[in-house]
């Protein structure tokens, strides 16, 4: 790894100051599980690493009065999983936490870091898209709120301006009963990036069942399968033909590449299969809670 200086500011203001004073030189760090690898491989070589870990305001999980979950950038995936599991909320996000790397690494890796890394296979992204999550940012100019769907602009490209950091991810908790899941196809069951993945959320509003579908690792930017969501709206009983049709629409919504993990053709097949399994699993889970 090339040499760098490490700054560990205790306040957000101090962190933003260091970033503003060192344009193009200073890079923010949350868990560092992506950064350390990229720095070892020399794909990036920041002069200054700004470790956000000691900023207390960015280390908590809160739920506001209007039911908005807010997760600070220092919150590790294991802490998030425990928090959600205890409260039995956001099941697709719980699945996503559990699918990420392995138990030990999840004591370091964060959800915010996963989103700011903006890698198409990022495991937290599809579930966050289904839950209409937004990234909260801060810079010396002020704060912004950007939906996760709009935040990721392409592989390793996010919507942050120079000197701006992601402080939190905010998720409106669904006010109605429902369920969700995240399914990921990999070559081995731990420590592997997704070849393809599908998050599915089912929300049971009185009279109208709603669905949200999002695919991972099969497009440079996040994908919501709005066509399938529209078609499924109001259908509380998912028949085999509805499921089949949804899988078809999911395949049409994505545009995967061939890389070391799998071919484009295989990824398309997996999106078809995972969409079917995800819808079936939601149907099963909703019957279990009912």
């Amino acid at each position: 790894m090339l040499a760098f200086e490490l700054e560990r500011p205790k306040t957000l203001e101090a962190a933003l100051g260091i970033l503003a004073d060192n344009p193009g030189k200073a890079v923010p760090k949350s868990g560092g599980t992506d950064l350390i690898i990229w720095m070892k491989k020399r794909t990036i070589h920041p002069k200054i690493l700004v470790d956000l870990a000691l900023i207390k305001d960015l280390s908590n999980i809160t739920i506001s009065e209007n039911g908005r979950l807010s997760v600070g950038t220092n919150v590790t995936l294991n802490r998030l999983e425990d928090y959600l599991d205890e409260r039995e909320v956001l099941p697709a996000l719980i699945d996503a936490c559990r699918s990420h790397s392995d138990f030990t690494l999840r004591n370091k890796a964060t959800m915010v870091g996963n989103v700011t890394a903006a890698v198409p296979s990022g495991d937290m992204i599809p579930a966050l898209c289904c839950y209409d999550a937004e990234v909260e940012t801060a810079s010396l100019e002020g704060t912004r709120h950007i939906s996760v769907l709009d935040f990721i602009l392409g592989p390793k490209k996010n919507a942050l301006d120079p000197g701006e950091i992601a402080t939190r991810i905010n998720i409106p908790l669904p006010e109605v009963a429902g369920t969700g899941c995240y399914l990921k196809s990999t070559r081995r069951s731990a420590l592997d990036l997704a070849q393809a993945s599908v998050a599915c959320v089912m929300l049971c509003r009185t009279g109208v069942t709603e669905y949200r579908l999002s695919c991972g690792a099969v497009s440079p930017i996040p994908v919501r399968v709005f066509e399938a969501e529209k078609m499924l709206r109001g259908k509380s009983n998912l028949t085999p033909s509805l499921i089949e049709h949804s899988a078809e629409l999911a395949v049409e919504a994505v545009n995967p590449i061939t890389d070391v993990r799998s071919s484009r053709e295989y990824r398309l097949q997996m999106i078809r299969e995972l969409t079917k399994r995800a819808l079936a699993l939601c149907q099963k889970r909703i019957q279990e809670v009912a």
Partner: protein
Amino acid sequence: MTKHIVRFILNGRAVKIEVEPRTTLLRTLREIGVISVKRGCEEGECGTCTVLVDNSPQKSCMILAMEVEGRSVTTSEGLIFPDGELHPIQQAFIDEGAIQCGYCTPGMVMATYALLMRSPDPTEEEVRNALAGNLCRCTGYVSIFRAVKKASAMMKKLPQGAGDR
């Protein structure tokens, strides 16, 4: 690059070490002679560098030494009792033949220790989940899972807290 002083508790003893910002906890520990912590992939994939930081298992190749300022770090050396007797987890790995070349063992032992602290009587699934990030090229894992079960039983026979580090 400038060096910095980092102070932390290592296996119960306060230490003060000069490090460069880029030096990982893994390399720092090995430099000062804590060689149970092995250098495997150095990319977070193999788990042989696993240590506890404030009781949470961490891959020490994924942590910069300066990040453990003021914190407590435990390695396999730190599990040994003051009289030199091995910790039940270490003994169980020997008894069950869960060590062949031994390269993965310290990491496996630390991941197991963290597991048994949070779940003294783990299910097979919990064991597999806890050790999913620790690779072993030799044993085929079955003897390792047996050792974890045995360690869990041995630790229950110890007086309350005697196996804690």
